[in-house]
């Protein structure tokens, strides 16, 4: 097997909750709890989960915008976690990010050309005289007119702004792009165009994506592999096709909630009881047990470990044998 481009091992991040006059720490929000995942070159890893489960925290932790508490982020075999921000700088070129909100992710006082050229200037990949030419190339690569160089972001629509954001991410020739819900703020049709653009760029430039979304259907469509996150943990991961018969009861519930545009087709909907527990007080044992329809005594006390049940398919549940879609 070729080496992974990015390998994350047991990443942890907790946010202290401070209260009271002397800012005493009154507990921790465990946003990332032993997250492990890996991405190969040219691959799209889809990351799904409910809002608040830690997807965005993971994205920011991977880029070291938030300092992880423990764990390893191996990028081409270098661990990024212990690096200082100065040591981190040369790696930033290889790891870029596309943001959810195209309105807040572009500096309103900078011209489009300046925005796109900034990463190139920071990493000294071009000198000032090449700037215009390079930006024009990038604008064309994302399907925009090279004449937009002198325009300001407020003159563009959401979809165009997202393309500008993608051009900025592409500029330093990164290996991995972390796309944090890149289409959820856009109209469906515009979103589809952006997805096609991302796929086309992946083929042309051999990019890897970590594609974060809460839209399981979309993730299944564009990802090679999918990881499912619940309360700061990856509860299941596997090839995208395997999502049609999931192993973990949480994934089963998510998959059963995807609407199918066929009124004749009947199937069992798994409705989860209760709310997502507060991440300040994680449940004992399996963190999914309070909402799990199959939970037994054992789930309350013993935390399941992530196990490879089939080649490439991992899940953390005691009863995958009994309830998981292993044999379908």
């Amino acid at each position, binding site marked *: 097997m070729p080496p992974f481009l990015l390998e994350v091992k047991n990443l942890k991040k907790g946010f202290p909750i401070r209260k009271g006059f002397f800012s005493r720490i009154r507990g921790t929000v465990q946003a990332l709890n032993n997250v492990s995942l890996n991405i190969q070159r040219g691959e799209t890893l889809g990351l799904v989960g409910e809002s608040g489960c830690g997807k965005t925290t993971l994205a*920011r932790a991977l*880029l070291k*915008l938030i300092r992880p508490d423990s764990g390893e982020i191996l990028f081409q075999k270098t661990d990024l976690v212990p690096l200082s921000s100065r040591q*981190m*700088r*040369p790696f*930033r*070129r290889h*790891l*870029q*990010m596309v*943001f*959810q*909100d195209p309105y*807040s*992710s*572009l*500096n*309103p*006082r*900078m011209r489009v050309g300046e925005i796109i050229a*900034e*990463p190139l200037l*920071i*990493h000294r990949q071009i000198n000032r005289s090449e700037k215009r030419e390079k930006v024009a190339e990038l604008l064309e690569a994302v399907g925009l007119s090279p*004449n937009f160089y*002198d*325009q*300001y972001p*407020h*003159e563009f629509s959401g979809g165009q702004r997202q393309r500008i*954001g993608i051009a*900025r991410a592409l500029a*330093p020739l990164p290996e991995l792009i972390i796309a944090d819900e890149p289409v959820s703020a856009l109209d469906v049709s515009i979103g589809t165009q952006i997805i096609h653009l991302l796929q086309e760029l992946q083929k042309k430039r051999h990019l890897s994506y970590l594609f974060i979304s809460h839209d399981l259907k979309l993730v299944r469509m564009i990802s090679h592999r999918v990881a499912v996150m619940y309360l700061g943990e990856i509860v299941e991961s596997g090839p995208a096709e395997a999502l049609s018969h999931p192993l973990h009861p949480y994934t089963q519930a998510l998959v059963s909630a995807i609407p199918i545009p066929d009124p004749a087709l009947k199937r069992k909907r798994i409705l989860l009881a209760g709310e997502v527990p507060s991440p300040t007080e994680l449940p004992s044992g399996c963190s999914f047990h309070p909402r799990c329809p199959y939970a037994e005594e054992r789930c309350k006390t013993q935390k399941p470990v992530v196990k490879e049940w089939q080649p490439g398919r991992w899940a953390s549940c005691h009863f995958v044998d009994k309830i998981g879609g292993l044999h379908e």
Partner: protein
Amino acid sequence: MKTVSYKSVVWQQFKRNRLALAGLVFVLCLVGIALLAPWLSPYSPTEYDLSSILLPPSTHHFLGTDEEGRDVLSRMIHGSRISLSVGFVAVSIYVSIGILLGALAGYFGGLIDIVISRLTEVMLCFPTFFLILTVLAFIGPSLYNIMIVIGITGWTGIARLVRGEFLKLRHQDFVTAAEATGASSLRLIFFHILPNSLAPVLVSATFGISSAILVESSLSFLGFGVQPPTASWGEILSQSRDFIDIAWWLTFFPGLAIFMTITAYNLVGEGLRDAIDPRLKV
């Protein structure tokens, strides 16, 4: 496709406000008068002419003369230089200090923020005018001292404003994006956060100029400002206190000039504030 820059949008909005536009024209005229003072003033502002003491306004002396026969108009034209330079220099000093401290506090947070914020609050507790009076009493009144003292006592408002803007902008996506690209702290502060936080500072500085002019006039009136025979509006007022019942023009015109100037700056400030309101943005 025509590019609409942020500045042109603000100018469009500003132009709609007629009062603000009038204020701006007045301010620009004042700047012109101050620059051209030696050529515009019909008489010397300091030379005595004991043959024409306390003359009321006439065709020879449009605004009359004072107790030493000096032309009031000429003295006021030269005085406008003092007022404007005090306004601009003092405000430039304190805006620079305020931006620096506010940016440090808002960007780095933590201990730096605590220290700077407490320092700001301590400064706010002093009654500024009396602090300035006290300091001037020690170091002696002069034009430069006034500028410096107003400058180093007035920064608190700007610092708090900039700190707030930095706190708000620090975690905006476009700043995070630049950070993720590898931009240094200096680059984040000067290219990304600061340009987006300057609009309210500009408004505050406009109001600041008017209050600095007022402070200078008050100081000169109390004798702590520029020293005679140098003319300043406050100083003319101060000198003419004794003749208020026999020479109304000595107090009326400098007072009117101060009043109009303050009003004009405030109108410009209000117009700017309305024009940069983010809700009006395209």
